[in-house]
């Protein structure tokens, strides 16, 4: 029996894996100590759990636990990484480089740094969503101190060439930050070989709880940051504030499970995603957004021509999907990520992001395929644009009575 709506929005957030929740709950109740309490067993027990979780987070990305700083989530990690590094290294230069398809947490932080006197280059991507390394190299300047490029894009799932970008940055002594919120458990991350200096993580995109994330801060060569949250000096001064033990324990367990299971899980998800793609590709005028090769197996972002976005979302209300990133879709403004792919020229396309995950079933995918066939057909039957195209009219030649 299918539960509706079918959840196909794993990039917005994932359910907490029940195994993760089971590990968290004792830390809300009987093991409730404050990890900073040094004077009694309640505190030590909590501290031990926090450190165990730190080891698990480090293991997933092959880092040293001492390089992991807890934060309240990837948004805070991105803020801490960018502001912290920019402010610390401001003496060396004031130029930053990032990409137009980054998450708002990076872009908005860059805007803030611009107001504080930094200069930021926002690079275009190729029409497959990937960064052109030649464009990237050309953007670097002698006063470039920091680069921020995401590993996996939240909307189109493409994987940026971080290894190559890391080599380029390291050779020039530029700090590289990578937002990996959408990457953990989906792609192998080996920080022992990747020349990445700062990396942001989130628990709730990898079957852990909301409200917890981490920032990897490289020790060799040592990367320094100006703290953004001051107080009791937690997290070696990088980030003050009482540690939320249960959430940290949840992130640790979620990342442990990801490490153990991602190989098999990704193959299963890839099979489902390919099934979905195949099922939708016999609808006329359907286009995939973003590169299909350099892409995580969880993501399928497609545009349907001559169908309006809001009515499409209404039509597929039995599917919990996104028409942009979760942070911006409430406004239904056209996705800036798709716009960066050059999709703005193509009028009257609507895109849906399908993101599959651990609990997605074949039955759910098949239901989604049937539903879309039915609804796209119905909306096109309603669409005067579709009718005109069928009659052979080129819509770009029409004089629209704009209002």
């Amino acid at each position, binding site marked *: 029996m299918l539960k509706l709506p079918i959840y196909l929005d794993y990039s917005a957030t994932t359910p907490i894996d029940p195994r993760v929740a089971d590990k968290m709950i004792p830390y809300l109740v009987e093991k409730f100590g404050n990890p900073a309490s040094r004077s009694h067993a309640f505190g030590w027990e909590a501290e031990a759990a926090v450190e165990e979780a730190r080891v698990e987070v480090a293991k997933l990305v092959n880092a040293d636990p001492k390089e992991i700083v807890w934060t309240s989530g990837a948004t805070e990690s991105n803020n801490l990484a960018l502001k912290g590094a920019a402010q610390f290294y401001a003496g060396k230069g004031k130029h930053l480089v990032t990409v137009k398809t980054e998450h708002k947490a990076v872009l908005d932080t860059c805007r803030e740094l611009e107001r504080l006197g930094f200069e930021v280059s926002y690079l275009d991507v190729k029409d497959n969503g990937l960064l052109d390394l030649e464009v990237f190299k050309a953007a670097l300047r002698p006063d470039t101190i920091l680069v921020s490029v995401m590993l996996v894009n939240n909307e189109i799932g493409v994987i940026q060439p971080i290894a190559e970008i890391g080599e380029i940055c390291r050779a020039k002594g530029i700090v590289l930050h990578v937002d990996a919120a959408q990457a953990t458990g989906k792609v192998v991350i080996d920080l022992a070989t990747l020349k990445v200096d700062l990396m942001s993580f989130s628990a709730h995109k990898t079957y852990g709880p909301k409200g917890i994330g981490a920032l990897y801060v490289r020790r060799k060569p040592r990367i320094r940051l100006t703290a953004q949250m001051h107080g009791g000096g937690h997290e070696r001064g990088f980030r003050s504030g009482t540690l939320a033990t249960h959430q940290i324990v949840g992130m640790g367990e979620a990342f442990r499970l990801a490490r153990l299971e991602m190989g098999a899980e990704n193959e299963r998800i890839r099979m489902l995603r390919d099934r979905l793609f195949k099922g939708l590709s016999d609808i006329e005028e359907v286009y995939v957004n973003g590169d299909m090769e350099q892409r995580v197996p969880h993501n399928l972002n497609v545009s349907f021509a*001559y*169908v*309006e*976005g*809001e*009515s499409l979302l*209404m039509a597929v209300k039995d599917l919990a999907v996104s028409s942009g990133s979760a942070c911006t879709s409430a406004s239904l403004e056209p996705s800036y990520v798709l716009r960066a792919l050059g999709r703005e020229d193509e*009028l*009257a396309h609507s895109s849906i992001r399908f993101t599959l995950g651990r609990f997605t079933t074949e039955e759910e995918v098949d239901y989604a395929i049937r539903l879309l066939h039915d609804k796209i057909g119905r909306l096109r*039957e*309603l*669409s*005067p*644009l*579709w*009718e005109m195209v069928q009659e052979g009219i080129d*819509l770009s030649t029409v004089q*629209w*009575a*704009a*209002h």
Partner: protein
Amino acid sequence: MAYSVKVLDHYENPRNVGSFGKEEEGVATGMVGAPACGDVMKLQIKVGRGGVIEDAKFKTYGCGSAIASSSLVTEWVKGKTVEQALDIKNTQIAEELALPPVKIHCSILAEDAIKAAVADYKKKHVDQAAG
């Protein structure tokens, strides 16, 4: 976005979807909006003797409220003379469908579609009379 029961009804069961043959007797077409704005409405009326609208059909590219507004209008114009049809105001449409402020433009577009269809009818009618 919370839709009213009436919007949902028209969206789920749109009335009078389709097109008339362009050369059919008494058919006039109003096409308003633009893809770039997110809505295009095509309203067709079939006007009989005495200027009475006997039938109407629509196609709409747009949100649920735009589809509902145009569907509603096809029901309202039927049986009215073209002059009476021009009396339909967007405020009546918005009120009937309980459109929220951000969706008022859908009702305006529907009113514009009526005007455009009637104008097309009059143009053809005059042309016919002249011919």
